[in-house]
C-alpha cells in the first residue's frame, strides 16, 4: 500500500489546485511507530505531507461531521461506508465531497504487537508479507496476516463502496470469512458466565471515552453519559455505570456500525470494545439482512417499519 502515496498526492494536488475542494483530509507521518496523525491540507504545495501506510486505522469520516466546506477525503473501505452513513444521517452532503478511495489490505494492530513485544518498540517495517519489529536490542518478525486488526482480518469490504477517484486497482475481497465466531461463543454462555465475561472485558476501562469520541457515529451534542438533567448514568468508576455506558453506546450504533475498528484501536487500555458492537452488527445482518454503509438509497433498519418484522412486538 506504500505505493499509493504518489497517487494520493497527485489527486490531492489536482483537486486543490482546480479548486474542487478547499481542504483534503488525510494522514501525516506520526512521531511514533505504528501511528499516523489525521491532518488536513489546504495548499497544493503541501500534499507531500500526506502519507498512507498500514498505520492509518483511525476512521477519517469522524472528521467530516458538520463541516461546511468542500472536502477531499481519503477513504479506505470502512471509511467509505461510514461516509455513506454520514450522508444518510445528514452529517455531510455528498456534493461537498471528493472521495479519494483507497483499496485496503488491512491495518496493523498496534495493541497486538505491543503486547507481544517486551521492550520498547522503536521501529516497525513492512517486508513483503512480513512485519519486522525492532527495539531494545531485539527483533521479532510476524506474518502480516497475524498482526492485522481483528476487524481487518474478517473484513469483507476492503474496497471503497463509494468514491470519486481510486488510487489503485481494487483488491480482491476476502471470501468465506467467518465473521461472528467470537460472538457466537459469547451467545452460548449462561447469563452468569456472560456477566462475568463482560465484567472482565470492561474491568480496566478508565472512562476516557476515546472509543466514543473516535467513532464517526457518536456525534450527539450532549452524549447521554454527559448529560446531567436528567442524569442517566453515574459518572464515577462504579462498574455498573461503566457497563451502562458501554452497552448503551453499542445500542446507539446498531445498524450504523461498519466495524471499522477505530474504537478498539483508540482505547488506551486495549479493551476489545468491538465485542459489543459486533453483536448488534450480526443481529442486523441476520434479522434484517442489513449491512451499514453499503447503499445510499436504502433506509437503515432502525428508521423503517416492516410489516414482516422478525419480532412479534412490532408486527
Amino acid at each position, binding site marked *: 500500500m506504500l505505493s499509493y502515496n504518489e497517487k494520493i498526492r497527485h489527486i490531492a494536488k489536482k483537486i486543490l489546485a482546480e479548486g474542487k475542494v478547499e481542504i483534503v483530509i488525510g494522514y501525516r507521518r506520526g512521531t511514533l511507530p505504528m501511528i499516523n*496523525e489525521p491532518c*488536513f491540507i489546504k495548499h497544493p504545495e503541501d500534499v507531500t505531507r500526506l502519507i498512507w501506510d498500514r498505520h492509518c486505522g483511525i476512521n477519517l469520516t469522524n472528521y467530516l461531521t458538520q463541516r461546511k466546506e468542500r472536502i477531499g477525503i481519503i477513504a479506505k473501505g470502512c471509511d467509505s461506508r461510514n461516509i455513506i452513513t454520514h450522508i444518510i444521517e445528514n452529517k455531510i452532503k455528498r456534493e461537498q465531497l471528493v472521495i479519494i478511495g483507497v483499496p485496503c489490505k488491512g491495518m496493523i494492530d498496534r495493541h497486538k504487537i*505491543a503486547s507481544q513485544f517486551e*521492550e*520498547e518498540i522503536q521501529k516497525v517495517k513492512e517486508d513483503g508479507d512480513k512485519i519486522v519489529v525492532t527495539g531494545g536490542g531485539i527483533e521479532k518478525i510476524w506474518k502480516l496476516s497475524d498482526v492485522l486488526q481483528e476487524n481487518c482480518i474478517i473484513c469483507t469490504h476492503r474496497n471503497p463502496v463509494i468514491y470519486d477517484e481510486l488510487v489503485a486497482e481494487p483488491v480482491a475481497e476476502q471470501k468465506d470469512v467467518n465473521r461472528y465466531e467470537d460472538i457466537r461463543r459469547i451467545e452460548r454462555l449462561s447469563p452468569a458466565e456472560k456477566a462475568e465475561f463482560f465484567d472482565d472485558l470492561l474491568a480496566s476501562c478508565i472512562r476516557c471515552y476515546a472509543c*466514543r469520541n473516535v467513532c464517526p457515529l457518536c456525534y450527539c451534542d450532549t452524549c447521554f453519559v454527559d448529560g446531567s438533567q436528567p442524569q442517566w448514568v453515574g*459518572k464515577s*468508576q462504579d462498574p455498573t455505570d461503566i457497563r451502562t455506558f458501554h452497552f448503551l453506546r453499542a445500542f446507539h450504533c446498531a445498524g450504523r456500525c461498519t466495524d471499522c475498528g477505530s474504537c478498539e484501536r*483508540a482505547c488506551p487500555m486495549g479493551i476489545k470494545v468491538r465485542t459489543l458492537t459486533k453483536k448488534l452488527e450480526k443481529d442486523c445482518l441476520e434479522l434484517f439482512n442489513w449491512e451499514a454503509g453499503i447503499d445510499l438509497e436504502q433506509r437503515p433498519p432502525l428508521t423503517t417499519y416492516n410489516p414482516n418484522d422478525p419480532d412479534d412486538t412490532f408486527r
Partner: protein
Amino acid sequence: MNVIKIDKKTWTEGIGRLQGFYRLIGPVKDGDFYQFKALEKGESPDFSMLNTRLSPKSIIYPQSEVMFEYSLDETRDDCHVIKEIQVEYSPQVVFGIRPCDAKAFLLVQRNFETPEYKDPYWIRLYETTALIGLACNTPCSTCFCVDAGSGPFNDAGLDILLIDAGEYYYARVNTAKGEKILKDSGWSEETETKDAELAIENLKQAAENRITARISTDRLKEKGVPDLFNAPFWEDVAFACINCGTCTYVCPTCWCFDIQDEVRGTDGVRMRNWDSCMYPLFTLHGSGHNPRDAKTKRLRQRFMHKLKYYVDKYNDGIQCVGCGRCINLCPVNIDIRKICEAMNGFEPEQKSI
C-alpha cells in the same frame, strides 16, 4: 544522604517483613501492561516494566473518591446533614515509582496544598504514603524528563530512590520516612557512600546519555499570553484531536476534578471524579454559554496551561514531567513535544502589548 546496598537475594525477605508494617503497592503485570496494585502477601513488585500504563497519581488522588455522605431519610436526626466520610488511613509504601512520576506529586501538591487551601483527602493520603522510586537505567524514546526538570535518577519527591545495579540495589535515602522503612525492612548492608555515589553517578550518566527526546522550554516565559493564545498553529495541531481526555487521565500532573452527588434510595454521597479540560462540559456555564465551545480551544487550554500559564504562575518550569504517557497513548498521535517546540519557537508577526 545515606546510601545502602541491598543484596537482591535478601529483597523478597525484606518486602515480606515490610508487609507486617505497611500496606504495600507496586507495579504488577495486569494483562498486557503494568499497573500499580496492592501487593498480596508474598507478592513482590515487578520491576521488569518500562513504566506503568497509568500513572501512579491515582494512589493519592483516586479517579473516583467519596468525600461526604448524607441521608435524605427525614425520620433520621441527621437527615440532610453532610458528613465527612470516615476512612482509615493506614501507612502505605509504594515501590517502583519512576522519578518523573514522583516529581509529579510535587507538582500536583501545588494544587491540593496551598497556603490558602488544603485538600484534606489528598493531603492525608499523601502524608501516609511513602514513595520508593526506581531509577531508569533504560529510558524510553519518548522520555523527555531531563528537559522537563526531572531526570532518570532524580530524587525529587522520593523517600528512597532504588538503583538497579545488577546483583544488588543501591538505595539512596532522602527522608526520615525512608530511613524508617529501611529499618523496618531489615536490609541493612551499609556501604561506603562515596563509592556508591560514584557508581550511581556512572549509571546516571549512562541513562541520561540514552535520552533522545528533547524539548525546549527556555523561551516560554518571555512569550506573550495573547500571542500564544492567538497563534495560528492551533488549528493545525488540534485537527486530529478527538477530545477524548486520555492524555489528561494518564498524565501524572493533571489534577482537575468534577463534583457529583449520587443518591440511592435515601442514601447519598458526594464524590469527586477526575475531569478533563478536553471535555466540552468542563467549561459549560449554567447559562448555556461555553467559553471553550470548540475542540481547538480545549486542546489549546491543555497545552497553554501546562506550558504557559503554569510557567508564568509558579516560575518553576512546566507542568509536565516528561513521562511520555500522553504521547504514547493519544489515539491520534498528538505529541506534546511538537506543540512545545511550536510554542517555544513562536514569533508573532506583530507583538500584542
